[in-house]
């Protein structure tokens, strides 16, 4: 069994919310070591060497992301993105609830690495309990002197501000998150300028995922080579995958990257009795489906990308043959249409259009032309949006429409096309 316990070490066994428990297991040691022994550049270098790629969805190498910050002496900020809202993903919430100190230590290390004295923790509005847990943890760390001025007697000071979102999926997008942090409407910003150049309050900013930051203490502790040696060379390390769907034991499992999907299915207990898996969505709601023949692919960033999908946030949803993919498609499209901020045209109008079309198909009003319409509309709204939300609709929809077209055709009752030739 390739399940490992790095980030998840101790979860379910001890109360990691207690700072003492966490410290006794080696917690905050790396923080202390970083401040007392290491320069920020060392940590950045170690992160680069480890090959850590962002765990939030895009998989961008964290070290490189940090390197984009301009060296202009302006204040810079680290923002921890805990607005986990991708359908099928529930790993950050678990980390927040179970190991808040590990997350906090990651934030502190990240902030130190980029030379920031102010870190922000953006917690999704629905994570009420997670927010309380984290605030408690922060209070404990502050009391212990890990957060504040002159930490560990050095002249380094750091503040951590916790901000709660209001439940918009789009605020998981880094620029929308920054807008939300600033008290504005949670809409993605126009890029360029990128947050690394002009982010929160107009200053250079890095936004990192909870899991990414929580990995930092382990890289420091075990060295970058330890991390880099796990998994494929270009996607090294461990990943918490959130397995759900038609499996017997859905849940978060921490595995090395590169584990085949079929093995992940087995870890989650395999398909239900007498059923077979026909499709799998490997990277959250925004990713295209893989199908039964792809189950032996190794689960890593590059392989997924090569097969037209993505690893994303590590949320794997298995579908067996009982799935109604029309309803599944509607569920996801409705989600994206509902969560569209409404700023840019293709996402706002296209999502709504797909939603009403799928609704009509499901309610028996489908037209022969609707199948093509779904593919055409979803394709033409992709690639021309301000932020990735609009581009997230097509992958799943198009992949299941193409693969399970008979299911969609089965709903079409009225064959005639209403298209009027122009």
């Amino acid at each position, binding site marked *: 069994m390739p399940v490992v316990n790095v980030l998840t070490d101790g979860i379910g066994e001890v109360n990691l919310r207690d700072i003492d428990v966490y410290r006794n297991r080696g917690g905050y040691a790396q923080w202390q070591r970083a401040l007392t022994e290491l320069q920020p550049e060392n940590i950045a270098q170690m992160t680069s060497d480890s090959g850590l790629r962002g765990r939030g969805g895009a998989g961008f190498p964290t070290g490189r992301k940090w390197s984009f910050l301009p060296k202009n002496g302006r204040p810079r900020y680290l923002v921890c993105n805990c607005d986990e809202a991708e359908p099928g993903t529930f790993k950050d919430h678990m980390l927040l609830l179970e190991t808040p100190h590990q997350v906090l230590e990651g934030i502190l290390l990240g902030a130190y690495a980029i030379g920031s004295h102010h870190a922000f923790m953006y917690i999704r509005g629905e994570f009420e309990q997670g927010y309380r847990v984290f605030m408690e943890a922060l209070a404990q760390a502050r009391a212990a002197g890990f957060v504040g001025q002159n930490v560990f007697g050095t002249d380094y000071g750091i503040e951590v501000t916790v901000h709660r979102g209001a439940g*918009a999926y*789009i605020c998981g997008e880094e620029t929308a998150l920054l807008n939300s942090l600033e008290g504005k*409407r949670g809409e993605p910003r*126009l890029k*360029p300028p990128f947050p690394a150049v002009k982010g929160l309050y107009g200053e250079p900013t890095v936004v990192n995922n909870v899991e990414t930051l929580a990995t930092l203490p382990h890289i420091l502790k075990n060295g970058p080579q330890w991390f880099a040696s796990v998994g494929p060379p270009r996607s090294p390390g461990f990943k918490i995958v959130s397995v759900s769907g038609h499996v017997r034991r859905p849940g978060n499992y921490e595995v090395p990257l590169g584990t085949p999907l079929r093995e992940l299915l087995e870890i989650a207990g395999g398909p239900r009795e007498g059923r077979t898996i026909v499709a799998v969505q490997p990277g959250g709601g925004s990713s295209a489906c893989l199908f039964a023949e792809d189950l032996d692919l190794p689960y890593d960033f590059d392989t997924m990308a090569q097969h037209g999908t993505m690893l994303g946030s590590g949320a794997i949803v298995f579908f067996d043959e009982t799935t109604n993919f029309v309803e599944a498609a509607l569920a996801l499209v409705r989600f994206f*249409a*509902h*969560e*569209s*901020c*409404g*700023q*840019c*045209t*293709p996402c*706002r*109008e*296209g*999502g*709504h*259009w797909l939603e*009403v*079309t799928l609704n*009509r198909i499901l309610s028996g*009003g489908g*037209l022969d*032309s*609707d199948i093509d*319409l779904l593919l055409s*509309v979803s394709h*033409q*709204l992709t*690639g*021309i*949006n*301000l932020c990735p939300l609009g581009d997230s609709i097509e992958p799943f929809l198009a992949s299941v429409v193409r693969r399970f077209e008979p299911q969609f055709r089965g709903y079409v009752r009225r064959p005639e096309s*209403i*298209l*009027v*030739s*122009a």
Partner: protein
Amino acid sequence: MTEAGPPQSVSLTIDGTPVTVPAGTLVVEAAKTVDTDVPVYCYHPKLGPAGLCRICLVEIERLPKLQIACNTPVAEGMVVHTHGQKVEDGRRAVMEFLLLNHPLDCPICDKGGECDLQDFSMAYGQGASRLADAKASKPKALDLGPTIVLDDERCIVCQRCTRFDDIITRERSLVVKDRGQRDVIATASGEPYRSNFSGNVTELCPVGALTSKTYRFKSRPWDNHRTATTCTQCSVGCQLFVDERYGTIARTMSVPSDDAISDGWLCDRGRYNIGFYADARRITAPLLRRGEQYVQIGWDDAVEAWAAGLRDALGAAGPQAVGVLGGGRLLNEEIVLLVALMQELGVTNLDWRAGRQRQATPGRYAGTYAELEAAQLILAVGRPPSQTAPVLDLRIRKAVSQRGARYVTYGGHAAGSFVGVTPLRSADDVENVLSGVERVAVVWDGIDLELGARLASAIDGWVARGVSVTTYLSGEANNARGAEALGMVPRSGGLPFTGMLDAAQNGRLRSLSIFGANPVLHHPLGGASVANALERIPFLVVSELFLTETAQRAHLILPARTGFEKAGHVINLAGDVLPVHQAHAAPPGTLADGDMLVALAAELAAEVPGPEDVLARATAALPAATHGFGDAAYSEGVTASKSDGMAAGKPGGGGLRIAVGSDIFAGGGTIWFDETLAELRPDPAATLSPATAARLDVHIGDRLDLLSSSGDDSLQGLVVRIDAGAPDDVVAVIDGLPEAPANSFADGDNVVLGARRAADALEPALVLP
């Protein structure tokens, strides 16, 4: 754009044409230099890119995806294609999405005919919709505020309106509410959208979602006859288009290319105060007083009576017994004629100062609008430019919000600018904020000459220190600077208007001709005493549009023409000579003041300059000024304001001092006789700071009376408003309201509270938010 480095140029290729533009230029702007068409909705040169509509997609070689031209800066060697299959496909897709839920009601849409969406859908639209379901249903004909109606179905969420309200006016009341397909333009507070610049959003709106109430369904763009002219409502001199149809002014529009003066914006007064010319109360025939009544007479008789009255006065008591007051409504040409005719008659009692403003020429440091925008520190003294010169205030807001300038005020008035303002209370404070500043712009209201004189000497000191200072004078009358420059001032021993009133009181003034001025409502001596003096004049002639408070005292009323109905020139507060063009036909029976004067000169057999001569004098460049603010030459012996006195120290015994401010919709005249503005006209109000209100125990909506400390004058029925930005112990009232004329009060006067009525005691309809 803070570092003004050497402008580097970048060479790129657009549609095969090599182009060289300054570095940092956006592709959409660079594309304008070649003959190509990049459609835009959300992008606006003054608002910058937003990247929302996605219609401006272009293909840039070596980039996999289509890029939006509005947010892509040019780069060296970039190869851009604004046409081609990929681009057309992308735009067609965006167009389909834009039109998906957009109603096809172009035939009844006010934007139809000048609508970007309509135009581009001809180019990129598909002709038929693939949407098989009903279009989304959204609110229509939503009343957004007193001036604007929203049709949300037509909205394409380009957010130009909200960004205008954010970036340009800084008022930030318009926002997008809800999200996704359900989003709707609304005010953040839920209150009606009130702004002095609200009309601009209808022009910015690329579709017909935001429309002006005054123009709704009045006309179609192709019906309008457009005249470019200069706005004559205030002294900024914004260029504007007047759209006329069937003899009525359908609307006014800003001139987008007018970067030098209006920056492409108009205030709501300039835009919406267009109903007065057709008001039923307009005077359209000369009126001669017969006892208590007026009789309509013809122009021949009117000119004859006028000439006879002047001759009688000249014959009986000489030129000293004749006076002329030429208000700001006059054009340069008319002023030239008036001055020349009076010179011919030997009359020296000339003046333009019918109100509080004493001076109109900013003097030797006079600056341009561009210099104001470039200032690091802007100092407003007296009444705030936001009410006296609204579009000028937009430049102040721009300088503060976009160029990092600092805005300070001196005096007891709230700035009303929606940008960070530092109110200063003493001359020392002013000197303190000046440290380290290189470029200063000073805006003065021209009222308190003594304050102006001290300001002038301070400015001289700053200039001596090497500070670059530009000065501006934003007053009440629109062509005051023209009047002053062209000699509409007391000549060689002649009396200023206040002196004329004095002479009238003593029976020494036999004849007074008033052109386009209403001193009864505006002169700081107070309505009662001005009216009293005017009534003692044996022969009072008033050229007016309406039967104003002053005209009601006249023996002969001459029906004049509005600024839309005559042609000539004006000089704005920055000293630009601007043309005024006739935009529509005047009602029969009226005459432009200039034509009246020509007729009068002919009747009097007096020699006046010919048309070429008049034009040459009216358009001549302004002579270089040598004086500064508060020059003694402008003194009239009237103290119209003690704003400086109010700025420092504590009020006297009553504990309350008055600040007489202005409002862009106050001032009587064209506003008072324009029913389309009924909802925009301010009520007589008393604005207090929260602390003062608490001390006096008055509440929002209460009505109260104010008495002058002598008890002679009063202002009655003022609605109490509370403004956190107002200074303590000051009650701010609005000048120029015919219901409660405040012209007998001066800034800084001590006042006491008279009777007060609680809000509850009033009819609910009278209580305003």
